[in-house]
């Protein structure tokens, strides 16, 4: 056998050994990458379609300002009653939005009192205590509508608990609440644990400032600079969710 034909034979034999290690490894890497990435994405999707993330954002008993059957489109707001930005959002965006989309979306309000606001927790307690008598929405509106009366002193954040409590009791009376019960509930551990649950859920969902909105579980991150821009953006997103 000549040298060249021997070489040829060897080549044929080599070819019969099948694909090289490089090709096998490359294929394996690509296959594993596709399976892992695809699998992780698909699994996450089934999670999102389920109730896992929604249950954390909208647990049973959380207060709604607007509610529709089946919660087709759900807007969740984590708010602090004493935060000036939340108050500005309320005045310029959510107050009107709540009316305009009443009966079309479920609008959930969750507590996220920030430490820098000394009256945020008492206000959240007042709202939750009113909620125990079925008047959460009334107290929510009263707290924001009268923001200047209890939350601020001139330009600065108020820490006057006595004045705030007197105001809260006034709103409770105006809403027709049983004032004695309102006072007891406000001081109760049960109301505090609702606020704690909201803060825990918010922290887990990545909330670190207020107001933070989630539309159908997805965090709303406005790009607009003015409240009018943000209002338009939020409405566009809600409209898209309603259409889709």
């Amino acid at each position: 056998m000549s040298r060249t034909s021997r070489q040829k034979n060897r080549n044929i034999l080599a070819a019969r050994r099948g694909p090289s290690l490089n090709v096998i490894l490359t294929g394996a890497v690509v296959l594993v990458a596709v399976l892992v990435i695809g699998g992780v994405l698909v699994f996450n999707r089934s999670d999102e379609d389920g109730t896992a993330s929604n249950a954390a954002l909208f647990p049973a008993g959380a207060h709604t300002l607007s509610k529709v059957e089946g919660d087709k489109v759900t807007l969740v707001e984590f708010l602090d009653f004493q935060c000036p930005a939340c108050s500005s959002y309320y005045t310029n965006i959510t107050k009107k939005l709540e009316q305009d989309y009443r009966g079309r979306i479920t609008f959930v309000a969750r507590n996220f009192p920030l430490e820098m606001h000394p009256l945020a927790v008492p206000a959240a307690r007042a709202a939750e205590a009113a909620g125990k008598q079925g008047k959460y929405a009334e107290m929510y509106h009263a707290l924001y509508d009268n923001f200047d009366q209890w939350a601020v002193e001139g330009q600065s954040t108020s820490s006057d608990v006595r004045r705030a409590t007197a105001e809260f009791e006034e709103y409770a009376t105006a809403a027709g609440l049983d004032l004695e019960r309102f006072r007891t509930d406000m001081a109760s551990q049960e109301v505090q644990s609702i606020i704690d649950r909201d803060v825990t859920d918010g922290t887990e969902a990545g909330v670190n400032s207020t107001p933070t909105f989630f539309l159908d579980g997805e965090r709303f991150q406005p790009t607009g600079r003015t409240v009018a821009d943000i209002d338009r953006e939020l409405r566009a997103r809600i409209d898209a969710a309603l259409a889709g």
Partner: protein
Amino acid sequence: MSRRLAWLYVVGGGLGLAAAAALTLEKIAKLRDPAYIPTCSLNPVVSCGSVMDSPQAAAFGFPNPLIGIAAFAVVVTTGVAVLAGFDPPRWYRIALNAGTAFGFVFVHWLIVASLYDIHALCPYCLVVWIVTIPLFWYTTLDTWPALAPLRRLHSAVLAFWYALIASLVLHAFWDYWTSLL
């Protein structure tokens, strides 16, 4: 230098050159009209606008794609010259390896910036990432005989590297990808 590497230079360098040229044109359009929205800005995540406006987009004080236009042109030219019969001397190949190594490091710095600082992806930049990695890898393998054992696993290493970056991109823009499904 092998003809396969020369073809990689022509194709990979050509793609990189096209992407760098496109980015430069977008940059000029944006300078002319600050309100201009680049053709590759599709949504908050896929947005070359936010990438181009970042400080990292002019790492050396001038827009990065200018480096790309100069450097990828050298890569394409080298590929064409080798296909035409040019046999690059040792010093030329080492210099080319140094150049592609710089591109490789620079691109990874930009990937980190894009994923963790700017939080946006730019399609033209993705093209540059994708071509720069094999340009560096195969130039290195071709330049240093000591790396011969690695040549047997050339595409496996490349695939692994791509998979790693793909997972980082997936992880960094997790919310976006899941919203697409």
